[in-house]
């Protein structure tokens, strides 16, 4: 088990280095002179030359990369935005909790729906309940999250006035220039985004859990468990679910990680200044440090969740642990 963990950790490091190389190369692929952007529109060629020197752009590529790594690993700095001159760390530090609120809450919500519905459908295929679930799944997958978000906002928020229409509230209390804050406000402002985010994914997960459970039900060892005299309940909870959850755990880890890089649609609809919006703005403005910052952050999330999934997987399935 320890060897397995070490091997996974080493792979994570290799992966991270590969990503730093790729994001660094972006600076040279994009057809914009970073120095000209930083210096501003009215800058003279001499001023641009000066900025180039300050940004190490006049040095060989490998030295620039070392400088980039030095910034990243020694100073833990992702650089400074070309647009606002703010540190990318603080930009991401502000945006990431917002995205995380949406994604983590949404994931909890979609699993709370998908696990029971998926299992129910698998145990009673072609029943009325299963058909209702499958039609809802189709609707959930087909409906675009932007449309769902606006409809929820319109009906629940505007017409019924039950929940806030949009906007984000700080969990830890109101920040300057904000009228709301604290856990209660945060929660009410999160409900609609969570539902919007969860609808698409719960649809996917109902289908995945259903097929995984149905497949596992046909396994020989499930028949063995029945032949041993296990009750149907024991058969399902002890013998089916643990095996059926293997593919689900993998997907869940990946989906959460990818979404943490920016749950763009939901942020857009509810006016959340999260990572997705930050990244889109940065791309529009050729704000290279912010782009690479969000990419690096997202890749750290993906690597981290992959690692968690690998460890979880090994814990569930002994065959992986011991190979």
């Amino acid at each position, binding site marked *: 088990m320890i060897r397995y963990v070490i091997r996974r950790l080493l792979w994570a490091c290799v992966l991270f280095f590969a990503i730093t190389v790729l994001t660094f190369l972006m600076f040279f692929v994009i057809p914009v002179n970073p120095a000209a952007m930083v210096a501003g529109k009215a800058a003279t060629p001499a001023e641009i030359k000066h900025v180039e020197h300050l940004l190490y752009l006049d040095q060989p590529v490998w030295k620039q990369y070392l400088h980039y790594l030095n910034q990243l690993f020694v100073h833990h700095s992702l650089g400074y935005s070309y647009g606002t001159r703010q540190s990318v760390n603080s930009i991401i530090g502000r945006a990431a909790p917002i995205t995380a609120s949406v994604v983590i809450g949404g994931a909890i919500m979609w699993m709370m729906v998908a696990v029971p519905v998926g299992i129910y459908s698998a145990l009673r295929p072609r029943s009325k309940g299963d058909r209702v679930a499958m039609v809802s799944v189709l609707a959930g997958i087909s409906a675009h999250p932007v449309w769902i978000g606006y409809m929820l906002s319109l009906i629940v928020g505007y017409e019924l006035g039950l929940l806030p229409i949009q906007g984000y509230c700080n969990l830890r209390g109101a920040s300057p220039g904000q009228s709301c804050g604290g856990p209660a406000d945060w929660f009410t402002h999160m409900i609609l985004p969570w539902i919007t985010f969860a609808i698409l994914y719960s649809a996917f997960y109902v289908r995945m859990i259903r097929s995984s459970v149905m497949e596992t039900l046909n*396994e*020989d*060892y499930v*028949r*063995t*468990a*029945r*032949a*041993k*005299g*296990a*009750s149907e309940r*024991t058969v399902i909870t*002890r*013998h089916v679910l*643990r*095996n059926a959850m293997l593919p689900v755990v993998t997907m869940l880890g990946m989906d959460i990680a990818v979404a943490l890089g920016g749950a763009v649609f939901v942020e857009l609809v509810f006016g959340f200044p999260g990572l997705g919006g930050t990244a889109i703005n940065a791309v529009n403005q050729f704000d290279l440090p912010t782009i690479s910052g969000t990419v690096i952050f997202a890749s750290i999330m993906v690597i981290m969740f992959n690692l968690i999934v690998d460890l979880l997987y090994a814990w*569930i*399935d*002994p*065959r992986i642990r*011991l190979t």
Partner: protein
Amino acid sequence: MPLLDVVDLKTHFLTDDGVVHAVDGVSFQVEKGQTLAIVGESGSGKSVTCMTIMGLNDRRNTTSEGQALFKDRDLLTLPPDEMRKVRGNEISMIFQDPMTSLNPVYTIGNQLREAVTLHDNVSKQVANRRALEMLKAVAIPRAETRLDDYPHQFSGGMRQRVMIAMALINNPDLLIADEPTTALDVTTQAQILKLMNQLRRDFDSAIILVTHDLGVVAETADDVLVMYAAKAAEVGTYEDLFYRPEHPYTWGLLNSLPRLAAEGADLKPIPGTPPSLLRPPSGCRFHLRCPYVFEPCIPDVPELLPVSGDDPDHKVACHLAHEFREREAHDLLHDLMAEQR
């Protein structure tokens, strides 16, 4: 009184294409401590018969009729919770493929203990001790250290031993073995069969052994039931079937055994394939492949009747005259013996 008395068992599956009569009126008895072998080709209803007795068919698309009397109870009408108490306790079952029959995410010890605690309210220590005893009884080397191993750390033969240990851990009266050696290589097969014979003596359990391998039958069975297309073709003692076979299908099975001694001899399969159980043929179900077919075989279903007055337990379902069958069987066995020499 037999331990298990199966009377006119019928099992139907409802499929999208229609009703499949997977078992169509089969009767047999299993005596205490005896081995009954059920032989037949794939799809003849052997496994379904066992699954029906165990109550393991999918209830949503299966209907069963008839009786399976076991210790004064009809297993087919027993309420699910009562049936659950019978399974794994009084009747247990082992399956064809040991590679997939154990749950990959639990240790062997865990799965053996579960078999105990499902039926007996005993402590983990007691269950563990019984698990260890059983692993030793099925001759697994270093049993103490292997309780904490996972199924994938065992070979196929060892896994089948574990399955047998799990099936016998509650000392059942009846063990149903559904092709227990089919997925194993020949030397392992012999070991497993030897083990089953020995355990039957030690534990005094009766065995229903499903197989399509007549070699396996010869090594283990007291009684034999030959099934063809969901019906019983012939039933009798092991001696009846091997030395006085009466049904042309049984002859075909015996004749199709590979012969090692006869140099260059080809396999002699029974021509044709088993009929579809969705639309079974009229009359005798074997008439399409039977070399002795004559008029009554096509319209009339032959009844399973005693071969002669002095041997009421040897029964056959065939329209041919007893004297003719006796002569043919004699000639066949004579030829087989001659080839062996």
